[in-house]
């Protein structure tokens, strides 16, 4: 049986959902950050799947853009995380409660 488009879409939807749930329930900043990366990669999978089935290269190009942006985001995000760790030596978001949530 050859893989159908829907298989890829289902997989990426699952990955995306895992990412969303992870961001919502994880309490460690690094884990939350990884879940966001998971969401982005689920999107990439969707793009690549569509691109491949349409025989259209623009979806794959989109993936490159997403990867670049994700790298930039990671750089800034880790910077922010390091700063906050320096100031309070904890990465648990529940500790980050000077501001009400």
């Amino acid at each position, binding site marked *: 049986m050859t893989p159908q488009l829907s298989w890829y*879409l289902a997989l990426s939807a699952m990955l*995306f959902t895992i*990412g*969303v749930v992870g*961001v919502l329930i994880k309490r460690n*900043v690094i884990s*939350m*950050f990884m879940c*966001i990366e998971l*969401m*982005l990669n*689920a*999107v990439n999978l*969707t*793009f690549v*799947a*569509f691109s491949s089935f*349409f*025989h*259209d*290269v*623009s*979806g794959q*190009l*989109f993936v490159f*853009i*997403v990867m670049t*942006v994700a790298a*930039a*985001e990671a750089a*800034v*995000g880790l*910077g*922010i*995380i390091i*700063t*906050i760790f320096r*100031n*309070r030596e904890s990465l648990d*978001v529940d500790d*980050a409660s*000077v*501001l*009400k*949530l």
Partner: protein
Amino acid sequence: MSLIALQATNPDINLTLIAPELIIGIAGVLVMMIDAFARRGQRWLTGGLSIVALIAAGGASIWLGAGWRGARSAFNGMIVLDDLRLSFTLIFVVVSILTILIAAAWIDIEKLPAGEFHALLLFATCGMMLMASAGDLVIVFLGLEILSIATYVMAGFRRTDVRSNESSLKYFILGSFASAFLLYGIALIYGATATATLPGTTNIATIAGRLNHSLYPPLLLAGAAMLLVGFGFKIATAPFHVWTPDVYEGAPTPVTAFMAAGPKAAGFASFMRVFVFGFPIATAAASTAGYTHKSWLGTLAIMAALTMSVGNIVAIVQNNVKRMLAYSSIAHAGYALVGFVAAGAATDAEQRSAALTSVAFYLLTYAVMNMGAFAIVTLIARGNDRRTAVEDYNGIGFLSPVLAFSLSLFLLSLLGMPLTAGFMGKVMVFTTAVRQGYLWLVVIGVLNTAVSAYYYLRLIIVMFFRERNTPWDAPRLPVSVALALVITIAGVFYLGLFPGRVLNAFGAHPSISLSIR
């Protein structure tokens, strides 16, 4: 033939069409370089250069609007030129100039690296401009990320302050979360717009034409829903607003002012572009296009009502001025959404253009009065935002009359009292909504205005009608902030009394290039 091959044969490069973005981008790089090599005494250089660049970008977009005969789109529809773009570009320019003026005092007091701040601000502005000029979801995403990444850093700019760190972290996590939703929406739209013969597309104008030929209509709806969530987070509409108060409270005050006015307006620009033009009103209500349009419009109307109510009601119980203004900014996004709903429901190009103009005008008025209010909050707060509680404003009315009366003016404008910009903004938005038959939404809007009187007046009462028991050392009014105040006060009255010119300029060129299909 694939789209890429088409683009390879005809790259359709038109640098004049992205002149404002280019100017700001190059200026941002220059500012960064100057900051690296300049001596300490030359701090003012970066600020001056940034303001010059912003004015040049504003001039460039006015010039683009004046020389209307040129191309309306470039880079194969990636960049478009219409009212929506031009009016929002001007709003961004105003917001960024005011931010630089307000931030000057704050940077001075806290000894922060000015050059870095100005460079980040310029990059953020460039991102906002791209969001407004995007004709393609790719550019929307890119502009959004350029904006967001710069703003994350700006929110955490006070590096040693835990509140600023937290604000930055929360903004980053929720911002990326929202971006991921947006991106997933784009991916689904890309898949859903494929037809039997053509591959999918991310071009907004093309999407509108493909709606009824979609191979996978459910994907289309899912994609639109994801986009709605993503944009909903970005412009802080209820129920996606929960991050706003924390982030706004913790970020340095000038950055809060910027975030409430600039990125929010940019979000509106793309949001409206994607939904009003990408999923336009359809002649056949039973078609996929009609169904999609009806779904998002109905959802948005409910979101607008919810956003206004939540923002205003929760603002009443706030004891921190920045937090109160954060909720007020949520509420104002709700009022602007009323105009957005009207734009979505408009059946002809003229009415739609009027509605889009009203939203742009509303966001301009909000930007002006909000920046003014935050300028004063910055001054009163002092270093490290120490004095931001409502009690800190006790009885300062006649001790610092200039600050107190200006702040009262901005609060009354935010409340929507006549003679001020806020009133005209509301009138414009509500007028277009009534025209499209959303009377119930307008009634909810005015009732919310009544609710908002409580918390805006509260601050005025505290300042003028109470006596101060603790000593008050009046803050010095630096030249840059004084200039910002003069601009904003003049703006509040000008937009409140003579909005005609601005409205005409914002609505001069309806977006006929993307006509209703």
